[in-house]
């Protein structure tokens, strides 16, 4: 793949089969061998192409349930696609309320594990360790298991790891809903600074101000379909007129 491309999805689609009766044990499967489970099909993502260049900030907008989060998971390689292919150039990270953390580990261990999953070497993590801790404001609880953290502390730690360690391609899913007001201001400041520059970011948001401010191109989705992908202004206009 061309090095200037961070992400390329060709003809991808995704259908969820939601089964009404759960046949998830061997016993159930044997007893119901001849009565297939009733399944409901939900076409979450209809066939579409999607391409993101390296260093680009792309917006993703649409109403609740239109498939934004599913698309994000497909593009990040977390869910497999039903058809088509997704080519990913580097590590990915979906950040909604921080990164994935183990409840059984301490904050310190979680910082090292998450950073490592994101592709950082231990030495590199050592270098940014203090920055992560101070940004998350959890210095005195650094060797406490995160299961004893309040949800706000968890969210701050996750946000801090994600922002400081970062992956090659970041998917930011409604991230400005994290923490108290003071922390939100801090989070916004990160974006105001040059953090976003040079990073490949896919930004999911319901705030048109945020989208207008940071995204060069934006995709508008409706009922699993990609209606428009191009200039941010036009995408926002389409979305707004569609919802009047």
């Amino acid at each position: 793949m061309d090095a200037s491309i961070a992400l390329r999805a060709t003809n991808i689609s995704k259908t969820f089969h939601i089964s009404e009766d759960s046949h998830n044990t061997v016993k159930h499967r044997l007893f119901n061998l001849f009565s297939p489970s009733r399944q409901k099909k939900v076409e979450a993502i209809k066939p579409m192409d999607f391409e993101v260049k390296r260093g680009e900030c792309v917006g993703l907008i649409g109403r609740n349930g239109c498939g934004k989060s599913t698309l994000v998971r497909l593009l990040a390689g977390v869910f497999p696609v039903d058809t088509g292919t997704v080519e990913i150039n580097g590590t990915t990270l979906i950040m909604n309320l921080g990164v994935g953390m183990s409840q059984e580990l301490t904050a310190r261990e979680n910082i090292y594990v998450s950073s490592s999953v994101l592709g950082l070497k231990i030495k590199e993590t050592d270098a940014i360790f203090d920055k992560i801790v101070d940004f998350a404001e959890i210095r005195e609880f650094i060797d406490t298991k995160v299961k004893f953290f309040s949800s706000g502390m968890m969210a701050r730690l996750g946000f801090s790891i994600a922002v400081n360690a970062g992956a090659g391609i970041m998917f930011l899913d409604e991230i400005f809903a994290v923490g108290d007001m003071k922390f939100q201001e801090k989070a916004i400041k990160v974006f105001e600074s040059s953090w976003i520059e040079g990073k490949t970011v896919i930004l999911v948001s319901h705030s048109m101000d945020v989208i207008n401010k940071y995204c060069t191109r934006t995709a508008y989705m409706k009922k699993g379909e990609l209606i428009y992908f191009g200039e941010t202004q036009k995408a926002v206009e389409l979305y707004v007129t569609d919802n009047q």
Partner: protein
Amino acid sequence: MAANTLKDWTIRTNKLERLWLLAKIEFKLRYYENKLGLLWALLKPLMDMSIYYVAFKVILGTDIPAFASYLFIGLILWNFFLESTSGTIQLLNTKKYLYEYSNMNKLEIYVSTLFANSIGFLFNLVIFIIFFNFLEAGGGGFSFHNLWVIALFINLFILSLGISLILSNIYILAKDINQIWMVVTSFLFFLSPVFYKLEVFQSKLPGFQYGNPLAGIIINARRVMMDKSPPIFRLLAFDFVYAFIILLVGIFLLNKLGAKAAEKL
């Protein structure tokens, strides 16, 4: 190409470091969350050993020489196998936090967990060597053939990894695989010569050591660690072939079913 891959794993990316980090944390979680620490790893085979010793030596009066060591080496191999298979059935569930937000390779999760088990095994092996060579009456004596245990352990590692992959991926579809595997393991345990006399095992179930990869590994481990003789190479070759076939099936399942773990579990 091999050199390139090695370089890719060590210098260019952090894969090896990550495996080590995950293994270390897994190990710490398992053994250092309690007061006894690493002794827990030893306690299980020691308890099993004393049960079988009483049953087979004291009550049934078996005439196997150095019976405690005979049991010990069999049990630590068996326990590694059990921990790495039964203990990892829910791995994709417990380690979901590692892959549900990023495109991390799931195979690394398995390898690191088995690395953590390997540390426990290594500790037990050292205890075995000390016990057999310095404490057991009628035992003792080092030999170059002892080094074959490395090959045997690699064999066991690949076999356990393969089965772990198969079970934990089936778990996505069938949550009760746990119970089924419990029955299979007790069957396997009694069909492996952990506490039987080898000659009896071979005469009652002729050729069976070729049908059960674990039996082969245990038989060979005793030869190289206790009898100062080389392994039975035919058996070793058979067991490696088994292990690789099972690993291939496991990787196939990981790509087929494991890919859906994030949405199904």
